[in-house]
Each structure stands twice: as C-alpha cells, then as structure tokens.
C-alpha cells in the first residue's frame, strides 16, 4: 500500500489543463452563452444588432428590447446562478453533506416567507428593503435548520440536516401559502416570482443586488483554503489549528448574503446550488480554492442556459426558470441520495 500513495486516483484523473486556464475557458463559454441569451427569445435579434445597440444606440425597438429587457435579465441570471452555486458549494463543504443546498435545507423558503410577509404587511416594498428582509429570513432559517439538525444523533449529519430542512420547509411553505390565501393582492403580485423567475427584472435590480452578491462571493473565495480544511471534518480542522467556529460564522454570513439576495431578485430557484458543486468536483477534486470560483462560473452558465430554455421551449409562453431547474435537478438529487447516503 506504500506505493499506491504516490499515484493516488487524483493523479490520473487530473485534467490536462491548469485550473486557471480552465477558469478562463469557462468565462469565455459564459460570454458566448450571454450573447446567445440576448439574441434568443420571443423575437430573434441578429448578433450585429446587439453590438450596434451598444455602439450606436438609436432607440429602435430592437435596441430597446436588448438594453431594457434581455441584457438585464441575462445579467441577473449570471448573478443569481453564481450566487446559488457558490452558496451550495460552501454549504456542502462546511456540512460535508452531499445533499446540502439552499433550497433543500429550507433557506430559500425562509427568505421567501420573509418577502411574502413583508409585502403582505407593508404592501409593495422597494427591492432594497425586500433584499434585507430576505437576508433576515434566510439567516434565521439557516440557524434554525443547523440547530435542529445538530440535535439529532451524530450531530448535523447529512440526513439529519436534510430531513430537518424538509420538515421546516413544510412548515414555512404552509405559512407562506396561508398569507397568499388570505391576500389575493399579494398572490397576484408574487405568484410568478414564487415559482422562481427572471422575467420582468430591470437593470436596477441587478445593480441593487450586485454589491451584496459581490461581497458574498469575495468572502467565499477568500475562505477557500479554510473550507477545504473543514471539508476533511471538523476534528481534523481543529487539529490543524483552524478556528472552526470563526470559519463557520463567516461562511454562514456569505451563504446568507448569496442565498438571500438571489431569492430577493429571482424567487426560490432550486437545485442549482445542489448540482453545480458536484459537477465541479468531478473535474477539480477537494480544493475549494478552485471549487468556489468554478462553481460561480458553471452556476452562471447553467442558469443562463436554463433561462433561455425556459423562454423558448413553449414560445410564446414562458416557463418559470425555477421549474426548469427543478426538473433537471430533482432527478439528480434522487441519484445522489441513492448513491451517496449511507443507509
């Protein structure tokens, strides 16, 4: 067994390009997807028009559609996709739970309840208020799920956390539904958002959420090394001299920033946070310094593609993108549960 250690499975599975080059490649793919997502939709717009709308904006219908509808929407897809994927990767690394994800663990439902309750009580509110409220809801739920999950036998095991999240989600969604039943006005205002959608968002929403997401991403990327250590298990991390409590708190703040702001602009979009880190880990092993930025890029690409699919599958009708991600992601969850969870 001594020899085996020199050629661990990691050696021969390693991709042939350096992680940095891969990241650049990912960004190029993202850019191509971005351009395509602007051209595709209810009306096809040729590529040269997109360029022209930036260089020589003439106020024509096509240019207006690009600048006020398509581009903001695509940018928000990128923002939300990367936020969800990175928060999922952080959660999976911290809890060592292959099923961890802001949707499954109930964090999104908590943020959604906070948003719905605010609209119900105070009427339409500005996005910045809703974002703050979503943070509070996400943070409170995250703490509650973690607390409840760690009461079970063996502490916060994947199974305990998942089941606690599911039960809490049932409770929270029933409260959300109660509010929507009581107030048809709130329902009318929010029903498309509740299914998880990127439609009808303007550039201001993107700009308002950008600082929060950027902060969350920067904090997450800075924690890469610590998360890698944590993913070996808390005891090992402590043995290596890591301040695990601090790492947990800072990472949790980042998760709440990312998950909360993505819910506030796009509603609860599930499964991106679950699937992306697994895809990334397939190529890059246990090093979260690379897993986190890769997750950001891959998450952005996936949500962009899902949104384009949601727009053009049933033209002229549009699907909520949350439905698309659930249809792709839930079977993946089933597969993971079957293969990775010990009986």
């Amino acid at each position, binding site marked *: 067994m001594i020899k085996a250690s020199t050629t661990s499975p990691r050696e021969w599975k390693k991709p042939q390009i350096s992680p940095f080059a891969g990241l650049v490649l990912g960004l190029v793919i993202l850019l191509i997807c971005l351009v395509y997502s602007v051209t595709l939709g209810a009306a096809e717009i040729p590529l040269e028009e997109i360029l022209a709308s930036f260089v020589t904006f003439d106020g024509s219908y096509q240019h207006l559609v690009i600048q006020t509808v398509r581009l903001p929407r695509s940018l928000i897809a990128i923002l939300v996709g990367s936020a969800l994927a990175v928060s999922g990767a952080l959660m999976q690394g911290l809890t060592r739970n292959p099923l961890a994800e802001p949707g499954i663990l109930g964090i999104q439902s908590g943020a959604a309840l906070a948003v719905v309750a605010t609209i119900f009580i105070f009427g339409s509110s500005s996005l910045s208020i809703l974002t703050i409220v979503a943070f509070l809801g996400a943070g409170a739920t995250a703490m509650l799920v973690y607390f409840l999950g760690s*009461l079970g036998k063996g502490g916060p095991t994947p199974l305990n956390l998942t089941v606690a999240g*599911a039960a809490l989600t*049932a*409770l929270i969604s029933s409260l959300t539904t109660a509010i929507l039943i009581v107030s048809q006005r709130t329902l009318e205002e929010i029903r498309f958002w509740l299914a998880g959608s990127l439609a009808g968002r303007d550039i201001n929403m993107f700009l308002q959420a950008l600082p929060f997401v950027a902060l969350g991403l920067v904090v997450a990327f800075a924690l890469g090394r610590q998360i890698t250590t944590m993913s070996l298990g808390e005891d090992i991390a402590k043995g290596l001299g890591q301040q695990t409590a601090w790492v947990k708190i800072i990472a949790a703040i980042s998760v709440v920033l990312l998950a909360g702001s993505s819910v506030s602009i796009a509603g609860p979009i599930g499964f991106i946070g679950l699937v992306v880190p697994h895809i990334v880990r397939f190529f890059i092993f246990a090093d979260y310094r690379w897993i986190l930025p890769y997750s950001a890029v891959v998450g952005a690409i996936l949500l962009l593609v899902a949104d384009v699919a949601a727009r053009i599958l049933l033209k002229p009708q549009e*699907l909520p993108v949350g439905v698309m991600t659930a249809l792709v992601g*839930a*079977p993946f969850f089933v597969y993971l549960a*079957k293969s990775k*969870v010990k009986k």
Partner: protein
Amino acid sequence: MKLDWLVIRSEAISFRIDRRVPLMLLCLAVVIIVAMVMNVGQGEYPISPLDIVKTVLNLDTGNPDHAFVIHNLRLPRTLVAFMVGVAFAISGTIFQGLTRNPLADPGIIGINAGASLAAVTVIVLFPSAPIYTLPVSAFAGAMLMAVLIYSLAWNNGSSPILLILMGIGLSAIASAFTSLMITFGDINDVSNALVWLAGSVYGRTWEQVFTFLPWLIVFVPMALTLARHLNALNLGDDVAKGLGTRVEWERGLLVLVGVALAGAGVATAGMIGFVGLIAPHLGRQLVGTNHEGLIPTSALLGGVIVIVADLLGRTLFAPIELPCGVVTAAIGAPYFLFLLIRNRKK
C-alpha cells in the same frame, strides 16, 4: 400475565384487540361529537349546542336560519373534516407499519405531492370536469408516486431512510409541475387551487361528502381486515412468511389501500399535512402497537385532529380563515422534528 385481549372469532373473521380499545373508541367518539358540535356552533353566526342538536334531529328551533346555516354550510364541512382526518390517519398508520418507519406520512414521503399535482392539473386544465374525477385522478397520481418512490428506494429491501429522501426529491419534481400549473392558470382557478393545496375544508358541500364516502366505505373495512397482516409484516418479511402471510400480495393490497385513502383525501381537502404522522403516534400511546386496535383508534384521532384544526383555523384570526392544513403543519412540523431527534437518540 393478565388477560388483556379481547378475541372475537367467527367463521369468516377473527379479531384480537387490546382490552383498552373499545373504551378508547367510545371516548374518542364522544370527543368527536363534542368537537363537531363546537365546530358547527362557531362562526360569524354562533349557534348554541342545544339548537344544533335540535336542528340535526329535524326538531324546530324557532329560527329558520339555523337549518340553512347548519345543513348547507357547516355540517357538510365538519363531516368532510372528519372523513379526511380518518383517511389520512389510516393511510399514515399503514405506511408507518409497512415501512417500519415512524416518520412515514403520506405527506412527507411525497404521495400527497403526486396526488395534488394530478388534482391541480385537472382543476386548471379542465375546470369543467365533474367533481368525481378529482379523487380518481388524485388516486392515480398518488399511486404513480408511490410506485416510483418505492422502486427508487429499493436497496436490497426498501430502506426507510431512502424512502424519505426519495420522497423529498420526487416531491420537488411534482411541486415544480404544480407551480407550472399555478403560473399559467386563470387567477381565480389558481386562487381556488391554492386554498385547496394548503389543505382546507372551506366551502365543502354535501357533494364532496358523497363523492368521498364511497372511498371510505370501500377502503376502511379493507384496512381493518388487513390489519392482521400489517402486524405480521411489521415483524419483518421472513417472520410474516412464517406466519402464513402472502407477503407481496398483502403488502400490495395495503399499499393500494393507503394510497387510495391518501389520494381521495387530498382530492377532497387538499394537502392536510402531518395528520397521518401524528395520529398513529398518539394512537400507539393510547392502545399499543397492535394494528387491529390501532387502525380504528388512530382513524378517530385523525378525525378529531382535523376537526379541531379547522375550528382553530376559523377562530384564531377571525374574520380571516386559515386553512386547516396550515394549522396541522404548524403543530405537526415541530412534532415531526421532535420525533426525528428522539429517534436518533435510540
């Protein structure tokens, strides 16, 4: 060894139940009647218990409004609450017995999600469909879901943990399709569908009572006669075979009964969660684990739970009505977590 069993044997059927059962059922019946009377009496237009009893017995109370309010509005609603409570409780008892998993509940293992997807689809796509198609389609959706979950959770025998996880995953898929319906439907249909999704007996009429009744008449006796086999299956397949149970056949029948009751219940009153979880647990506290006594006990308990939840939902924030599914979830979810934590400690 005290003789604490009642044994009834005849040519066709034999029953062996805990001595506590008849008394318990009697007590529960009294509780149910009291709860029903309270539920009928409460509301915008309070009616005294005496007047209610008189009206139901068709005696004149000297107030013509009473007959209308009770017969047309409140009585059918209360009866529906009781009936779906019975259905969900029996379904939950069967699934907990079959999976030997105290956390199994048709809501948690995703069967309700399948049923509600089928029913919402019918409501939104075919608003003019006759009412009796709802339980049938919900049953089909629930059955499909049950088969899927069961086959996915199969891992050299069905693993209780996997059952729950598969239920969570498949529920997510079903809910995605349900949101799809909610997004595209006409706002009024959607509003109705939502009330119904949350689990509510609001505005239920005799029509619903009589649509649902045949399902109870067929499947409740089936559940009672199959209770013996549920006891045997609960000991594990090998023991059950040794006791002369045709394992796969009886299990199939039990799943059919559990799914039918859950599906019809969802079609009638939507997703009233956690009733199927709580009722069997309370029942076991009262009469022990023998299913022949447990099934009727938890059935009546389920009835009480839904009637009381409906009463609370109507009175807590009056004049706003909370669907009783919200009330059961608010009570049931913490209880579920408590069970989860207690189970892990064993």
